[in-house]
């Protein structure tokens, strides 16, 4: 049995590597899944050949809800941006807090954190608010290489921040743990790490920019835009989540996609500029395609790995690693697998690791939260380097990619230590889960 599964696993690795040579990561994952399924079916009848197609199709439904969250949340953020809300907040921050540097940095930090936290994708943070925030940071006198580093780390952390954390959602879906109680175990470390990152990389001012020049170069805000028009859709969104929690038996469960849709309609109605909503939605779906496809294909991969026994083999391998070595190896395994598989890393390693940690008495929810801090670091690593490449693009950094990565090493190390410590001491931190409920 062990030998058979190893052959299937090997065929998947080869298929992935060969496809990666010429095609994007989502095709590599799909080819790994299809080849693994075919090898398992043809050579070992696991699954039976007549069942293979059914498994491939069934796998597409695994993360359907996540795709819906992704889409509705990103359309919501796109409306806020198109209405001038993002430009309004950034301009106001520079105008009022240019000489109060720490406050300005913290507000810009929140602006990057919000889109990623709401959508679960750091790339959305980069695409929606990355460019204006990068411009604001440059005008605060921060060198462009450090600006890129700040955008990368914060966008990565935003993806892990609540309410939507895709890695945690994928792990929960695969381990039958409810996606509940993650708010504080994620929000507290992410806020602390974000504040540390933005102050460590951005506190020191370099260059001689002035407030007047900064305001002159920043994007203009549409007439009629006010702070309330920016804040109200978000208040409604978080209000709906809070109301559901306070009166769980009186309020129907709406779910995040519907809540995002309602918030998007409010943002659309309040917008001072006319927004072509259909075109905006079509453009958003087009821009999101690689992410949506990755999530759907990871579902197929997970289904094939389960049915062929590969997932069980990996789980078994994880269990046999000495525990101390396992904790240390997390610092490398999770970011590197994220760099190769993107969200697939959570399905491949996150799920068996959670089972194992749970079985030795660690608190599964805090463990998943801790691991969630480590995945986004891999989004700066090749071959995908999804958030890293976007950070370079939006901050218009023209230098060497490695030089930008070097700037991130201190926050990277601190995030890694915090993530691993959260896993090791997860039982002691379980009160955060209780407080979140």
């Amino acid at each position: 049995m062990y030998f058979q599964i190893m052959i299937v696993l090997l065929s998947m690795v080869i298929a992935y590597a060969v496809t990666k040579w010429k095609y994007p990561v989502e095709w590599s994952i799909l080819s790994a899944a299809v080849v693994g399924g075919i090898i398992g079916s043809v050579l070992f009848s696991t699954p039976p050949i007549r069942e293979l197609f059914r498994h491939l199709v069934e796998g597409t439904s695994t993360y359907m809800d996540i795709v819906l969250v992704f889409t509705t949340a990103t359309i919501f953020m796109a409306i806020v941006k198109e209405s001038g809300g993002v430009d309004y907040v950034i301009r106001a921050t520079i105008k009022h807090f240019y000489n109060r540097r720490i406050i300005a940095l913290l507000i810009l930090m929140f602006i990057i954190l919000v889109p990623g936290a709401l959508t679960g994708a750091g790339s959305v943070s980069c695409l929606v608010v990355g460019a204006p925030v990068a411009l604001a940071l440059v005008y605060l006198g921060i060198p462009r290489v450090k600006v890129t580093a700040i955008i990368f780390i914060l966008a990565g952390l935003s993806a892990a921040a609540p309410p939507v954390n895709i890695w945690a959602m994928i792990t929960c879906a695969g381990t039958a743990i409810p996606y509940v109680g993650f708010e504080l175990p994620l929000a507290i470390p992410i806020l602390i790490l974000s504040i540390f990152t933005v102050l460590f990389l951005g506190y020191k001012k370099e260059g001689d920019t002035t407030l007047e020049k900064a305001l002159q170069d920043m994007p203009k805000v549409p007439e009629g835009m006010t702070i309330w028009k920016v804040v109200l859709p978000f208040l409604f969104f978080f209000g709906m989540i809070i109301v559901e929690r306070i009166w769980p038996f009186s309020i129907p469960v709406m779910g995040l996609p519907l809540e995002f849709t309602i918030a998007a309609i409010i943002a659309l109605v309040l917008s001072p500029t006319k927004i072509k909503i259909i075109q905006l939605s079509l453009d958003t779906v087009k821009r999101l395609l690689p992410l949506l496809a990755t999530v759907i294909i990871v579902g197929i991969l997970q289904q094939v790995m389960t049915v062929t026994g590969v997932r069980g083999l990996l789980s078994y391998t994880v269990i046999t690693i000495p525990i101390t070595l396992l904790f240390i190896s997390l610092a490398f395994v999770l970011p590197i697998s994220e760099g190769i598989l993107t969200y697939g890393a959570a399905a491949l390693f996150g799920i068996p690791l959670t089972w194992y940690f749970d079985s030795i008495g660690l608190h599964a929810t805090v463990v998943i939260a801790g691991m969630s801090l480590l995945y986004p670091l891999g989004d700066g690593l090749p071959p995908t380097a999804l958030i890293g490449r976007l950070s370079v693009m939006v901050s218009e950094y023209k230098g060497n990619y490695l030089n930008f990565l070097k700037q991130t090493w201190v926050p990277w190390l601190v995030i890694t230590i915090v993530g691993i410590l959260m896993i090791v001491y997860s039982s002691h931190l379980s009160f955060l889960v209780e407080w979140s409920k």
Partner: protein
Amino acid sequence: MPIVMIIYYILSICLIGMLIYNFIKEKESTTDMLLYLIVAIPFVLRVLRVK
């Protein structure tokens, strides 16, 4: 059928519509066209209530 579920069916239909529209409009990349179809699969099955 509860109203929330009906709204989710409508959301799914909207997403399928956007995916199909982008699929038709996509002229350059064949791989993107295929990705649109792959993403649409679970939503089409859900709307058709195929298990």
